[in-house]
């Protein structure tokens, strides 16, 4: 049971034991975030590089802060201001960065499987920060960490994931992670945004969100990727809101102490109403803090003491 020197590419491939290791390490490291001086010397001399070929606010900042709190140096590379614009291939860019001495690469890319590709090309560990429609493993780990904060267990909980299941790497990673840890996962969304074979992943699928939410401990609201509307996968934002938006009424189907989660960025008034997003049942901002602790744990477990 060790992540040392390894890639973290997907929860589909991650053992429940390794997931537990990340979660318990993050539990210990979270204390550092409340210190007046948020820094421990553990990863001194290590360099991590974030390669983001897609926009991100939370994930990139969260990884970079996590690295710095552990005393690693973080450099970032963004495709917009780089030689990618001059046509350099992903493999060449990454190999060049490695030759400058980075110890770990964190990548987000719009192509599914690109992190697996990068891991094959590079000798250093690669962490997936979201690859296309495939997975976003660190997001799911921080989501599970947040659920544990409120529910103290995963086994036996009912988690309803609502929205664009088809395009959501967040949904996929959460489905893999939560089912491995013993949760019952239900998904709901417009039939155009539900993969037809989704139940093969061990979840129940519904086209009425109320059915998925019935008796849930956790209601996980996905971002409606508005760019999908152009492809006519749903008629309008308003219609989506009317049939799938999480509001007071739909939430009333969940347990009284159910929590509401969202990976951000939120389209307020579309997939979630503002009063729910800002209600005491929303743990959306806790997810952000958990994210830093979980990523500190991942960096420690992969890089700590590893040459």
């Amino acid at each position, binding site marked *: 049971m060790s992540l040392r020197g390894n890639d973290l590419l997907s929860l589909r491939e991650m053992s429940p034991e390794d997931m537990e290791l990340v979660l318990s390490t993050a539990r210990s490291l979270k*204390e550092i975030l409340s210190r007046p001086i948020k820094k421990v*010397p553990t990863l001194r001399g290590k360099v991590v590089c974030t390669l983001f070929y897609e926009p991100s606010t939370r994930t990139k900042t969260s990884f970079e802060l996590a690295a710095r709190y552990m005393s690693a140096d973080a450099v970032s590379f963004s495709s917009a201001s780089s030689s990618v614009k001059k046509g350099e291939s992903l493999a060449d860019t990454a190999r060049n960065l490695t030759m400058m001495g980075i110890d770990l690469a964190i990548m987000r890319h719009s192509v599914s499987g690109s992190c697996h590709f990068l891991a094959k090309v590079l000798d250093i560990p690669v962490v997936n920060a979201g690859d296309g429609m495939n997975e976003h493993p660190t997001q799911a780990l921080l989501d599970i960490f947040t659920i544990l904060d409120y529910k103290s267990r995963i086994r036996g909980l009912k988690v309803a994931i609502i929205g664009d299941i088809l395009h959501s790497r967040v949904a996929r990673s959460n489905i893999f992670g939560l089912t491995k840890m013993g949760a019952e996962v239900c998904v709901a969304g417009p039939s155009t945004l539900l993969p037809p074979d989704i139940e093969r992943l061990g979840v129940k699928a519904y086209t009425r969100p109320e059915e998925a939410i019935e008796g849930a401990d956790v209601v996980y609201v996905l971002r409606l990727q508005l760019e999908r509307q152009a492809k006519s996968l749903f008629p309008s934002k308003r219609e989506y809101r009317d049939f799938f938006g999480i509001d007071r009424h739909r939430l009333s189907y969940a347990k009284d102490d159910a929590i509401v989660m969202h990976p951000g960025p939120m389209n307020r008034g579309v997939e979630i109403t503002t009063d729910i997003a800002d209600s005491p049942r929303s743990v959306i901002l806790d997810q952000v803090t958990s994210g830093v602790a979980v990523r500190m744990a991942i960096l420690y*477990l992969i890089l700590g*003491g590893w040459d």
Partner: protein
Amino acid sequence: MQFIDKAEIMDVDGIRRALVRIAHEIVEKNKGLDDVVLVGIRRRGVPLARRIGDILKDSENFDVPVGELDITLYRDDLSLKFEQPHVGRTMLPFDVEGKVVVLVDDVLFTGRTVRAALDAIIDLGRPACIQLAVLVDRGHREIPIRADYVGKNVPTSRREVIHVRLEEYDGIEQVVISEEAQE
């Protein structure tokens, strides 16, 4: 690695008497317990710190705050360890600023654990002073560190290992000196 116990050097009474003496020395040296806090180094320093706290409560009728310190993130030998050590939780329910911090550990050996603990404490604030209490000092220091309170000095060879076994973790109370089994 298999170890064979060679001799028991402290039993349940021996451990208790040593902690009682350490508790009294802490009061004596600091002329009271104002501003004194006890910080156990994970893992076996933690129950020892709690016990010293309990003794002080009984004898001085004074509640000394007790905290737990994990030093994994401050170790200098992470890369040498075959097994990556588990990061435990640091829980200090008080501010160390201006306090007399008494670090508590089971065995003082090379001094490297204490070095790491000093860094960990100083990262949390600036204590008025830091003192060190250990149940056993077995010698072989690799850095200039000494203990203020010692339960028992035990001369050892480097091949030997001191095992402190405590009710909380081991279901038994004893300190033994053991040696690696010969193949």
